[in-house]
């Protein structure tokens, strides 16, 4: 008979062995879970949201310039170039390589020979030629024409004097030569969603916009206007193993409050946040884990009209500088915008290579502002009309916040409230003394800064009517040089000129915030537009409730 002590020892050993086994099993499961969390899972459903309107405009990507429509179009269609968010640069999407002529004007692309349209046909150089020619149809107002106009001979097609774009030459099915008119990187032009490559046999069907066919990772399945677009995985997509998900749903949700309920109720996987929600989500320990932030390439500012129709005081640089010094921008960003913005230093955003990292924003210095105003001949200040929309981040609430700050240095504002739809029209016509708005400031820094080039018409984007020989010279040199490092440096200098000249009140760069559920992976902080994701890289793990 074994002694009691022996029995106790044996039991103890058993407990230890079983504990060890259990511990190893748990560790193993933990490792497996960790591996599962890292390894993209095939299958599942992605449910993204389209927050900018109550419907989609068009699913014909060439017919629409809207950010809302591009959320879907990025999944169904592809462009010659794409924006690489991870490395903040342009990359070839539908070509494997490109060679550039010495004069920097002729680009020869070796196209992908593995890109299929959703109707099963392989893409060739003819499809790119067809797509770009379609965009230049002079009878239609395709928004992508502003980009394709870079290609030699495109304007002839636009005017109707030619049927083919002379700068597009097919060498063989998978080799395409593009001749451009300016020494710029055509990638900045040909990555825009409105230059998507379409198959002629589908694009010419009258119902193409309702049944789009493209080269993207997901193929169109269903569109319930005003509700959702559903897409399915395209198995012949050219990136091996991608996309991961079986289905992608883009759900229209224009109301922020309703989106919030749906997100908390786990009915959607992503949701763009406004300032109020940003505060609430950051304060919630669970929701705070799923927040993706990025400084988007949008600069919010008050643009002064420096032309004759504007307020006379703004013609003086000292007044404009005083305006920047009089406002406590940091306070407004913190208290009113709830930190959902980054303080603007100058016109170009920090993501631009030409952004000068050594530069500091205008300090809040009302005394210096008063001194500058006195020097400019306005010791008692002045009054002007400020056109504004209702936008919560760059509209009336901001105007109300700066009014008392400016009043302290004698500048009085007469706000003029208009609809957002009208704002651009007023700016283009120059029917404003100043207006507050948000401007796209990337990713092409040269094109962005051209909005302050003296020869750029107001209708194009020079809404301030700014004119500076020093600035023009820098921009001319930047446009002519083929040396990219030199161009970056010249643009940096030009941006610094803008800082000093202050044709605007530099307010903030938008901080785009995307809330996401814990089961969705592969989302990217795209600074060109955070809702424009790369659906082929996104996957959902098994904890997703969507079936």
């Amino acid at each position, binding site marked *: 008979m074994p002694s009691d002590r022996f029995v106790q020892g044996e039991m103890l050993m058993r407990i230890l062995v079983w504990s060890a086994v259990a511990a190893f099993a748990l560790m193993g499961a933990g490792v497996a879970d960790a591996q599962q969390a890292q390894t993209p899972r095939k299958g599942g459903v992605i449910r993204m949201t389209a927050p*900018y*309107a*109550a*419907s989609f*405009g*068009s699913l*014909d990507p060439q017919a*629409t*310039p*809207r*950010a*809302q429509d591009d959320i879907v179009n990025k999944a169904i269609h592809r462009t010659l170039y794409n924006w690489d968010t991870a490395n903040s640069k342009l990359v070839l999407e539908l070509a494997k390589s490109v060679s550039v002529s010495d004069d920097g004007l002729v680009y020869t692309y070796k196209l992908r020979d593995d890109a299929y349209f959703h109707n099963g046909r392989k893409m060739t150089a003819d499809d790119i030629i067809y797509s770009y020619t379609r965009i230049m149809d002079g*009878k*239609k*107002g*395709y*928004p992508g*024409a*502003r980009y394709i*106009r870079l290609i030699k001979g495109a304007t002839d097609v*636009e005017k109707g004097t030619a049927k083919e774009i002379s700068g597009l030459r097919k060498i063989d099915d998978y080799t395409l030569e593009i001749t451009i008119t300016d020494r710029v990187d055509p990638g900045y032009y040909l990555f825009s969603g409105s230059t998507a490559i379409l198959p002629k046999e589908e694009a010419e069907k009258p119902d193409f*916009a*309702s049944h789009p066919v493209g080269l993207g990772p997901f193929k169109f399945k269903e569109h*319930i*206007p*005003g*509700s*959702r677009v559903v897409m399915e995985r395209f198995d012949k997509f050219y990136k091996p193993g991608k996309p991961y998900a079986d289905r992608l749903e883009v*759900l*229209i*949700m*224009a*109301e922020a*409050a*309703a989106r919030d*309920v*749906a997100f*908390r*109720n786990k*009915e959607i996987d992503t949701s763009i946040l406004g300032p109020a929600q940003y505060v609430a989500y950051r304060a919630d320990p669970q929701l705070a884990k799923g927040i993706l932030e990025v400084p988007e390439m*949008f600069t919010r500012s008050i643009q002064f009209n420096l032309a004759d129709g504007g307020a006379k005081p703004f013609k003086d640089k000292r007044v404009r500088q005083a305006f920047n010094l009089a406002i406590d921008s940091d306070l407004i960003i913190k208290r009113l915008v709830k930190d959902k913005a980054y303080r603007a230093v100058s016109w170009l955003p920090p993501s631009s290579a030409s952004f000068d990292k050594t530069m500091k924003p205008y300090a809040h210095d009302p005394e210096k502002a008063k001194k500058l105003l006195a020097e400019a001949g306005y010791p008692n200040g002045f009054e002007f009309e400020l056109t504004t929309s209702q*936008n919560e981040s*760059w509209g009336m609430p901001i105007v109300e916040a700066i009014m008392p700050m400016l009043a302290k240095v004698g500048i009085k504002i007469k706000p003029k409230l*208009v*609809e*957002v*739809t*009208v*704002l*651009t*029209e*007023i700016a*283009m016509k120059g029917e404003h003394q100043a207006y507050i*708005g*948000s401007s*796209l400031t990337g990713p092409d820094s040269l094109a962005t800064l051209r909005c302050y080039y003296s020869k750029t*018409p107001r*209708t*194009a984007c020079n809404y301030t009517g700014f004119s500076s020989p020093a600035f023009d010279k820098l921009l001319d040199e930047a446009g002519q040089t083929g040396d990219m490092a030199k161009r970056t440096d010249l643009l940096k200098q030009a941006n610094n000129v803008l800082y000093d000249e202050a044709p605007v009140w530099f307010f903030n760069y938008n901080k785009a915030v995307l809330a996401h559920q814990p089961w969705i992976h592969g989302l990217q902080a795209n600074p060109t*537009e955070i809702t424009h994701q790369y659906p082929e890289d996104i996957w959902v793990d098994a904890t997703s409730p969507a079936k």
Partner: protein
Amino acid sequence: MLLVLARRLANVVPTLVAVIALVFLLFSVLPGSFISGMGEDGRTTIDPAVMERMRKEMGLDDPLPERFAKYIAHTAVGDLGKSFRTREPVTYLIGQRIWPSLKLMFAAMAFAIVVGVTLGFLAALRPGSLVDTVSMVAAISGLSLSQFWFGLMLMYLFALTLQWLPSFGYGDGGIMHLILPAIALGVGPMALLARTTRAAVLDVLNADFVRTARSKGMSERRVVEWHVLRNALVLVITIIGLQFGSLMGQAVVVEKLFAWPGVGSLLIDSVFQRDMPAVQGCILLIVLFFLAINTLVDIAYVAIDPRIRYGR
């Protein structure tokens, strides 16, 4: 009856023309256009040459009288033009939205009639009782509530807290997605119907012929069924008709909140983006619907109350 119908239809045509003219002129003088609105919160920049071409393509540069004449001529033959946004025929766009809209309206009205008329009736039969007080508090609350706020509260309660229903969307078109938007849309008409029914029933209950019926020894149930209900119904049907007719227009807020794919959400997007053909098409439909329902109500009066005769 045919004469009534013919007369009503004769009134409908000038009303329609007046509405079409008003909407057309209002949108022509409003600042901003579809093209300038494409900037979409500063997220997009549009090339001025493209803008010019779009204006030409959309006929926005043509003189106003010419545009109006063209629009009237096309509308007369059922051509509502092409949407600026989607470049598709407006009739096609509306056709896609009409069924979800009708579904929502019928569901909302069914909720309003069942709950509103029942509450009003019960309240009138026992004036001053607890039922009356509760019903009227519910009715006044329903009338005062903002659809937007009430819709959000429904979402919080039934979707987020109780997890009974989906919070938004159309789903597969089934009833589960329909319930919350229908209640949010129907609460206003429900409240009005409750109050109207109560007032109408109380009015009839005090009428001489009801007193006569009671004095003849008729049972209370029979009095209510034969005399009260039928006579109170005229006013109730008027309210139902008016409310039902205007429901398509009222649905704008609810459809946007619940991402419901009806005519209302199409209208709101089209207004904000100045898509004039789509706006005109949607408003035309809403007005047509209103006029059609009211014509049906007028006809229903004759059927319910033989004393009513038009044009005599």
